[in-house]
């Protein structure tokens, strides 16, 4: 055991003394995870869409539509002229530009009850943000319907347009008796004092303005066991992904260092001592596991302290970190055992690492993958690491939820180590 501990101690001292490795495996994942967490909704502007508004309709109703858009908490509206808006969308600083043309409100009101030509709202959008375009369209529809219909049922412009439409029907320009009845009813409604309609509304609850409004509201509830006020923290997934990725890089570097040691003769020098090959390999696996475990714990300590990530089960997290550490060690040994030269192994190992972290959901969550890919990635060990870490962080689950992932990680680690030892024994020197 003395030799075993000496070998482990040696690896730990060498790792801590390597400042470049510490920077690579500790600082980089924190910096990149902070960036990704921020990009995917971690900042104060979480989910807010940048929209340019070209306010060409100077009417009272037109201004109310613009004000409604600006008041929407899901939009960050900047008013500018059309040329500026087009330039901003082209450059990508605005996702969508809404051009509200002159006379829009009046034309929209006319078109509401009669076959008058419908006015056109021009939407300029960034081709890379088509999903955002659909969202802005929805919010714009809600605003226009709400403001224009309120005006049509109670505002001066609405009364004027109703009178004009009735005159057109009476003059025979529009031959539709049912439309005449409806316009007459609207005129009667418009003539009622505003207070009376508010009184009626008050009986049913909250006072509402005249006009059409959304006949429902939604109650949005993110389903996780995380504390209700905390909810989903995008930093949690970002730290899991980047932590896993850079710790795997550490495992890869460990394997390459072992290959270099075999080439340089120090491996043979160790084996010339009265220690077995299995002991030397096992000591390397244990030191790599300890390093990986500590790295993941430090990375998440920063995530908790600086980015508000919560760990719902400390034993679950520690279990996942330890099992992932063993997996990292197994991966490193595999690189050392099957690599021919450090130079050749580096390229292949880097490719394998990147594929594993990509398919494992370290960059983007696996739910965005097609169903068959999601099934296929069950054989990717990193998938289990990410799933396990998600479970004990933002999903707010306990130790039992982490146990399948721990078992899978340990299984992969055992497989990798067994393959590596078999290979080492086949070609020991």
């Amino acid at each position: 055991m003395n030799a075993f501990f000496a070998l482990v101690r040696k690896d730990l001292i060498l790792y801590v003394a390597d400042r470049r490795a510490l920077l690579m495996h500790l600082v980089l994942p924190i910096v990149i995870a902070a960036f990704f967490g921020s990009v995917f909704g971690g900042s104060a502007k979480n989910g807010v869409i940048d929209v340019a508004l070209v306010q060409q309709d100077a009417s009272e109703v037109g201004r109310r539509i613009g004000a409604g858009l600006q008041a929407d908490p899901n939009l960050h509206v900047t008013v500018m002229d059309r040329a500026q808006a087009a330039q901003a969308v082209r450059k990508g600083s605005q996702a969508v530009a809404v051009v509200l043309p002159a006379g829009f409100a009046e034309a929209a009101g006319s078109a509401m009850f009669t076959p008058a030509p419908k006015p056109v709202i021009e939407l300029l959008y960034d081709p890379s943000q088509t999903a955002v375009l659909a969202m802005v369209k929805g919010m714009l529809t809600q605003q226009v319907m709400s403001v224009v219909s309120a005006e049509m049922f109670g505002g001066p412009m609405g009364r004027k347009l109703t009178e004009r439409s009735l005159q057109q029907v009476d003059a025979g320009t529009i031959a539709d008796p049912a439309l005449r009845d409806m316009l007459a009813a609207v005129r009667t409604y418009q003539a009622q004092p505003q207070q009376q309609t508010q009184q009626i509304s008050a009986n049913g609850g909250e006072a509402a303005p005249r006009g059409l409004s959304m006949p429902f509201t939604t109650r949005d509830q993110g389903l996780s066991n995380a504390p209700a006020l905390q909810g989903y923290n995008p930093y949690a997934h970002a730290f899991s992904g980047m932590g896993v990725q850079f710790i795997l890089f550490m495992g890869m570097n460990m394997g390459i260092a072992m290959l270099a040691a075999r080439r340089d003769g120090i491996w043979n020098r160790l084996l010339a001592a009265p220690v077995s090959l299995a002991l030397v390999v096992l000591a390397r696996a244990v030191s790599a596991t300890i390093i990986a475990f500590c790295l993941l714990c430090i990375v998440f300590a920063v995530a908790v302290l600086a980015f508000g990530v919560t760990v719902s089960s400390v034993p679950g997290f520690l279990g996942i970190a330890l099992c992932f550490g063993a997996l990292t060690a197994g991966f490193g040994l595999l690189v050392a055992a099957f690599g021919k030269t450090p130079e050749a192994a580096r390229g292949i190992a880097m490719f394998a690492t990147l594929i594993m972290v990509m398919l494992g959901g370290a960059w983007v969550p696996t739910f965005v993958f097609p169903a068959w890919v999601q099934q296929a990635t069950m054989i990717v060990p990193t998938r289990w690491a990410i799933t396990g870490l998600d479970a004990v962080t933002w999903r707010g689950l306990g130790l039992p939820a982490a146990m399948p992932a721990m078992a899978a990680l340990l299984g992969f680690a055992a497989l990798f180590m067994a393959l590596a030892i078999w290979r080492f024994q086949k070609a020991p020197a």
Partner: protein
Amino acid sequence: MSVLLSVTNLVKSYGTRRAVDGVSFRVLAGQTVGLLGPNGAGKSTVVAMLCGLLRPDAGEILLDGQPVAAGAAAVKRRIGMVPQDLALYEDLSARDNLRLFGALYGLKGGPLAARIEHVLGLVNLQDRARDKPATFSGGMKRRLNIAAALLHEPDLLILDEPTVGVDPQSRNAIFDTLEALQAQGRALIYTSHYMEEVERLADHIVIIDHGKVLADDTPAALHRRLPARAVLRVDLAEPAAEGVLAALRAHAGVTALAQDNATLDIGLVDNADAVPVLGWLQQNGQRPLHFSTARASLEDIFLNLTGRTLRD
């Protein structure tokens, strides 16, 4: 002296290439055996088998009568290995390197600390114990490499080309260390392709080429095998005539003769033949301006055995 190591008919092949082909030799307790051969002769393969790193295809290695099977811990504990490549961790201090290698041989605590201080003193690196080998010269690293092999006080120290890339001053320091070990009665196997190193250290020399033992004897006995054990070089005022050269070839004690311009290289049975040969040259009208004699070297022995030089 008792036999410490016995190597019999060792064979090792890599694919179709036979790297070691029936090598046999012995090392007596306290003896220094030089394993001499050009690069690629099979020396390092023999060393790897002696240290239990490679399993021979055939043959037997016995240390004090115990077989050195690959991985046998008890036998490995009695052998110290100084590999050709520097087997040191550059970012561990010299003391931490020694602590690691000592622990691999089961040393710990006070005895380990005492051994570390002892071997650091032996290789004259006490004042650099806290420094990392990355800051050492090539010679200092080589000495630390040797120190790491001495921690567990092995019965047999195997040194595989321990002076590669070392300046003359450091080489002398290494030899001082090795001679101190010889004085302690420790057995050494010293592999090299530098004949002067082996000649300086070895009591017994095994010459290997193409995986086979060409000669296995004491340095004196190997010299006796040479037709010319000394060379007399004479610079003449004028080149000698053919007739003079023919007469000189027939002179007693002369085994070989070559002339390059006015310089004669005369092979002699013994150094003592130089004086009568010089006298004969003067008596026969030749005017020697300068002369020197040299003892035949291991290089000459290898040349005589293989027809090529050690560095070919």
